[in-house]
């Protein structure tokens, strides 16, 4: 564990071989993740926790980290520190050392420190803190083997630091009174009495909840006495005592060869953080992300289409006919499997480019700046600038975006952001957009895609205004956030990150699309009813589709376009399923696997607007339920459904009227 943005997840991935998401901003990790490594034929479990600045918690993700440390029976704490911010990072280190558990201090980014002329006396630091100190570069995987060996050594031969921090005399006096009183309760909680007493004086909520009434009374009396003597809160005095100790340690162990180091980040920020530069720049980045994702992909998509057509469709199609395969097998192959494979292949490049942009924003340090730049703008809609981070994550997937809302300290802001995040089109909607835009708007696909994203965000802000007036009254909370130094991300690292995310996305989307194609194709291949008058055969899917289609008629879904209705129902389970539904329900008469049943552009756009806005998938519903409760999960589902219907209805009728 350690402060936010110190490289915990990078180290976790390096030690365990896992593939954790990393980024250059605070709050990348919002839940605990476990992994393993083997050393000398013994398996060790490693837990990656969200970053915290201190054991006092202010947000849900911080609470997860703090509670884990307090409540689990861990063998060793690996405290990772950003060596470039050693003073601030050591605050948590000293709090952890007082907890009296075996610990290794891991100084990360030592390579950057050396480059900038910062040298650290590691043996002296280890002596002053009373525990092993190792230096590593997690990103370059330097020092990882040595760290693993040190872990094994400390686990097998635990040693606990007996560091004593001198506090203000008033605090020391009260500690001496409290320690004998809390010994039994501390033993029950498997912690040391001096640490337990200190937490009581600091008014730690978790420890306070465990304390007996007598302990609480003594702690309250002690806190009053300290305040009366010093006119300062005990927790402030304790923090100041720790920092005084840290400054002494830093003085003895740190050596800057060049104290007049210029911060390039500051110079960039002088420009970037100007509102009339920062806000247009942010929108420009977003515009480039979507238009380039389609613009650069289009030529490649053309070659993929040709390749698929020649090899899979014509080649294997001819073979299947030549060996007299049944019609339904040929249909599943040509319309379903080939169509699904082609759609997935066409998605690779747009998705890869979007993930490249998101990785660039995350790894460069721009993400944190966006919160500051956008705060005033977001505030107009009753939201905090920090809410922009979950919304950007939402371009990838809504589930981690909802989880990222944990970093918002205020409950009102957190709930409001959770409700708004699904308006940002997630990656799962891209297959639908790409399929539609390439089919109906081949020349303007990038612009249409960008317009859909913008419209989603506009609707999020409209909803924010509405909710602000109805139940989320009051102002969004102010926030505190670290601005990391800008880093030029390594091209290789950007591509690896984007590649891994794209791979995960394609695998997940592929599974959904192919399962839906397979199921729907099978159901659709066997007729269960024949119309006596017309001789037309109907399958279970056709009948179901035709039964539900009248519900969507007001938004432009005609009776013949029953595939569109089936797609919308399937999309409740996963948005990619909409594509699967269209591809699997195509018939020989249906040009474009069902897309040909849309009779007009207003119908197409109304349908896309409905897909953009309607109820998020079931996984998002469950995540929102876990994070915010049943009421908000249901509110979100119903509100988005009604809103999507209303917007699509209005658009369809107004556009049809104008075009007529």
């Amino acid at each position, binding site marked *: 564990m350690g402060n936010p943005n110190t490289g915990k997840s990078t180290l976790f991935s390096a030690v365990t071989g896992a593939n954790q998401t990393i980024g250059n901003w605070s709050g990348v990790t919002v839940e605990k993740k476990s992994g393993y490594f083997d050393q000398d034929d013994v398996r060790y479990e490693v837990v990656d926790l969200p970053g915290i600045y201190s054991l006092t918690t202010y947000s849900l993700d911080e609470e997860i980290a703090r509670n884990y440390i307090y409540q689990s029976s861990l063998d060793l704490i690996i405290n990772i520190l950003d060596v470039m911010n050693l003073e601030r990072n050591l605050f948590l280190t000293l709090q952890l050392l007082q907890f009296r558990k075996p610990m290794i201090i891991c100084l990360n980014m030592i390579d950057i420190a050396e480059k900038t002329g910062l040298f650290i006396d590691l043996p002296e630091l280890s002596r002053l803190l009373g525990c092993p100190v190792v230096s590593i570069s997690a990103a370059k995987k330097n020092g990882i083997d040595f760290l693993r060996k040190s872990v094994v050594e400390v686990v097998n031969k635990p040693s606990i630091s007996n560091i004593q921090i001198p506090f203000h005399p008033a605090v020391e006096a009260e500690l001496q009174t409290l320690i004998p009183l809390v010994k039994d309760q501390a033993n029950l909680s498997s912690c040391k009495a001096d640490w337990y007493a200190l937490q009581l004086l600091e008014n730690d909520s978790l420890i306070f909840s465990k304390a007996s009434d007598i302990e609480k009374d003594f702690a309250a009396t002690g806190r009053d006495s300290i305040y009366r003597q010093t006119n300062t809160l005990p927790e402030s005095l304790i923090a*100041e005592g720790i920092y005084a100790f840290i400054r002494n340690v830093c003085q003895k162990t740190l050596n800057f060869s060049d104290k007049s180091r210029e911060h390039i980040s500051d110079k960039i920020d002088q420009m970037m953080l100007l509102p009339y530069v920062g806000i247009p720049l942010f929108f420009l980045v977003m515009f480039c992300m979507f238009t380039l994702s389609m613009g650069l992909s289009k030529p490649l998509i053309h070659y993929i289409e040709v390749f698929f057509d020649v090899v899979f469709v014509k080649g294997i199609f001819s073979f299947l006919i030549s060996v007299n395969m049944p019609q339904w097998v040929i249909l599943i192959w040509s319309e379903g499997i080939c169509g699904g494979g082609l759609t997935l292949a066409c998605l690779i490049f747009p998705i890869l480019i979007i993930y490249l942009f998101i990785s660039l924003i995350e790894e460069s340090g721009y993400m944190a700046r966006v919160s500051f730049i956008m705060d005033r703008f977001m505030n107009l809609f009753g939201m905090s600038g920090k809410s922009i981070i979950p919304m950007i994550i939402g371009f990838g997937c809504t589930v981690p975006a909802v989880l990222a809302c944990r970093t918002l300290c205020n409950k009102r802001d957190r709930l409001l952001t959770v409700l708004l995040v699904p308006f940002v089109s997630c990656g799962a909607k891209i297959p639908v957009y790409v399929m539609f835009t390439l089919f109906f708007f081949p020349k303007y696909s990038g612009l249409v895609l960008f317009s859909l994203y913008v419209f989603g965000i506009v609707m999020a802000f409209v909803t924010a205004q509405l909710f602000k007036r109805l139940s989320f009254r009051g102002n969004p909370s*102010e926030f505190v956030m670290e601005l990391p130094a800008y880093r030029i991300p390594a091209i290789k690292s950007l591509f690896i990150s984007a590649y891994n995310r794209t791979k995960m996305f394609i695998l997940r989307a592929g599974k959904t699309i192919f399962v839906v194609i397979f199921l729907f194709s099978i159901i659709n291949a066997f007729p269960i009813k024949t119309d006596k008058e017309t001789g037309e055969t109907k399958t279970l899917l056709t009948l179901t589709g035709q039964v539900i289609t009248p519900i969507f008629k007001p938004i432009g879904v005609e009776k013949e376009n029953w595939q569109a209705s089936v797609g919308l129902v399937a999309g409740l389970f996963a948005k990619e399923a909409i594509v699967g539904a269209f591809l699997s329900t195509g018939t020989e008469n249906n040009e474009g696997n069902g897309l040909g049943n849309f009779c007009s552009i207003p119908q197409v756009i109304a349908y896309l607007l409905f897909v953009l806005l309607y109820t998020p998938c079931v996984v998002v519903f469950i995540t929102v339920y876990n994070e915010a409760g049943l009421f908000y999960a249901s509110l979100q589902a119903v509100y988005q459904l009604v809103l999507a219907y209303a917007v699509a209805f209005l658009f369809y009728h107004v556009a049809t009227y104008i075009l007529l």
Partner: protein
Amino acid sequence: MSVSAIFLIAATPDQDYIINSNPIQISIELGMTKDSVIRVMKNSVTKRQMIVISGETRYVIPTAWAKEIEVSLI
């Protein structure tokens, strides 16, 4: 408040100040303790957030905090 002391909100950007008193616990835990050096990077009384440099770190902090942190020019 001593004669030369001001609140951080009134501090001139790009000048070093020493903290005289700070009642905001979160900021103390981030290193903005009494007698530590702080520098304002971006400030505007009309905005909700400002940027300060404390130690080696840049922070976005609420402007409301800066109305309570008392500093003196070094």
